[in-house]
């Protein structure tokens, strides 16, 4: 496998680390070169979150998942590019330049974990960590033709993940196969007392469970996922994937998820509100960028934030601040939280009849650089299939299932009940035994 730096023509990495410091590796991930999204704290190098605000920030501690990777014998090749603080679907909102899609360098890699997805797609690393708040592992996985897993909320410790939307954020895995994703998840999952939202539940042996034949898989396909905005090539590829599952004995049924469209609005209002609170810590006082010549105490905050934070980040902070502000809180933030309850109920109801839900990961394949970023609302609507899993806290996986006529990867998304990662990985693995989309390289 080539050294990362020499071959990173897609700007997948913000920082690559020379191999010299790695000790003789033993453990389940011995020999694995992996990458870590740059919103995950590492004592080595910098943790920039793709932002001018943290351009020179050096974390005094390692994230829990970084400790776990090291303990498992993996070698971290470097920190990958992202949309600033996780806010974006294209990895263009980075202070360090966009990440280009290895399948077509005029196109985006998806986001916000675009660097991790591109690094895996280009085979610069075997696997990578990303974070998924509204789809930021799954969406770039689909755009780049790799496997991307978002675990159940609380399955993996967030200690050391720079917070964006604390009730949504999940550290996830990008890899070239469900089998590799299973190995990575097993290494990083589990209880950590340093994250109060991390659950204390045993971690199943995902690898052993990959090969289980669970009997007739009941797959629910929400009819709302096939509405007008879906790209024709994506629809064809997803329908073909469902045929593969049917041929293997699955029972595929149409179901209703009537709040699918509303999920984008509910998600963005709540996550922006949470972000406005989480990003209040970036104030130029204790760390990060401080404006050079503050006029007064207040200016330290305002000028530092204005200079250090990018446009999309500022927009979301303003949206969130608005939603939480006096006079608007009930109609916007509280309303969105009530809709979140209804969406969660819809998922629980769906899982009474189905083992997994299936559909496209994204309504389209990778757009050209510059297109999606120009229209924030259009960008938000691209998350229509992914935000539901974050609202409900459930696990979901995106796996390659074909290509557009223009040769761009298409992702199939499977969603499962809380803590059903084993079931998702098993279904994904079975699909990858019957097809070879995931083995294609740019």
């Amino acid at each position, binding site marked *: 496998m080539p050294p990362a730096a020499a071959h990173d023509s897609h700007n997948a990495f913000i920082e690559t680390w020379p191999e010299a410091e790695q000790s003789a590796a033993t453990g389940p991930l011995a020999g694995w070169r992996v990458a870590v999204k740059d919103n995950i704290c590492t004592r080595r190098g910098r943790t920039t979150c793709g932002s001018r605000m943290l351009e020179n*920030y*050096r974390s*005094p501690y390692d994230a829990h998942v970084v400790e776990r990777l090291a303990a498992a014998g993996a070698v971290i090749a470097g920190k990958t590019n992202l949309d600033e603080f996780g806010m974006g679907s294209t990895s263009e909102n980075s202070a360090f330049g966009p990440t280009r899609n290895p399948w077509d360098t005029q196109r985006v890699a998806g986001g916000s974990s675009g660097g991790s997805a591109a690094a895996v797609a280009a085979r610069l690393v075997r696997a990578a960590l990303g974070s998924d708040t509204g789809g930021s592992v799954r969406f770039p996985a689909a755009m780049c033709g790799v496997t991307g897993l978002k675990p159940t*909320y*609380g399955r993996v410790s967030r200690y050391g993940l720079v917070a964006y939307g604390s*009730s*949504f954020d999940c550290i996830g895995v990008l890899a070239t196969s469900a089998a590799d994703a299973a190995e990575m998840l097993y290494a990083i999952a589990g209880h950590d*007392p340093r994250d*109060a*939202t991390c*659950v204390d539940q045993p971690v199943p042996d995902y690898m052993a469970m990959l090969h289980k034949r669970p009997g007739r898989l009941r797959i629910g396909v929400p009819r709302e996922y096939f509405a007008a905005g879906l790209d024709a090539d994506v629809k064809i590829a997803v329908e073909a994937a469902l045929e593969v599952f049917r041929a293997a004995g699955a029972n595929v049924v149409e179901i209703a998820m009537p709040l699918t469209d*509303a999920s984008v*609005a509910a998600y*963005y*209002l709540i996550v922006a509100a949470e972000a*406005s609170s989480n990003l*209040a810590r970036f*104030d*130029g*006082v*204790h*760390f*990060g*960028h*401080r404006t050079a010549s*503050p006029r*007064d*105490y*207040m*200016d*330290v*905050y*305002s000028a530092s*934030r*204005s200079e250090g*934070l990018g*446009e999309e980040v*500022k*927009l979301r*902070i*303003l*949206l969130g*601040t*608005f939603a939480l*502000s006096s006079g608007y809180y009930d*109609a*916007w933030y*509280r*309303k969105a*939280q*009530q*809709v*979140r*309850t*209804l969406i*969660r109920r819809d998922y629980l109801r769906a899982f009474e009849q189905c083992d997994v839900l299936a559909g496209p990961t994204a309504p389209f394949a990778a757009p050209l650089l510059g297109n999606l970023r120009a229209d*924030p*609302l259009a960008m938000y609507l691209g998350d229509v299939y992914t935000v539901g899993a974050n*609202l*409900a806290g459930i696990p979901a996986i995106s796996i390659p299932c074909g290509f557009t006529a223009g040769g761009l990867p298409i992702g199939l998304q499977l969603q499962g009940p809380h803590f059903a990662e084993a079931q998702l990985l098993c279904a994904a693995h079975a699909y990858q035994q019957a097809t070879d989309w995931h083995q294609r390289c740019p």
Partner: protein
Amino acid sequence: MPPRIDNATVRHIANLARISLTDEQAARCGEQLSRILDAFNQLSQIDTSGVEPTAHPLDAHSVLREDVPVSPPGAEAILANAPRAEAGCFALPKVLEQGAA
């Protein structure tokens, strides 16, 4: 009913968020926020009577641990990232005026 995101509203929110905007940025943000809130106003059509808001995706409860000290990173490690540090403290411009905001 989606609110008018006029310049005064943008200025008010930006002040709450401690972000300073140029006139051009404020105008652009106002437009974008208006479009976004117009679209998101669809939520008002959904019947949520009697529905509890979800604050947390799991059944949240207070997590306790043993009252035993743990070692945090030392002051030196923390101050290493300070924009300006003096005498083991974070240095800042003085608050110039006390009194009504």
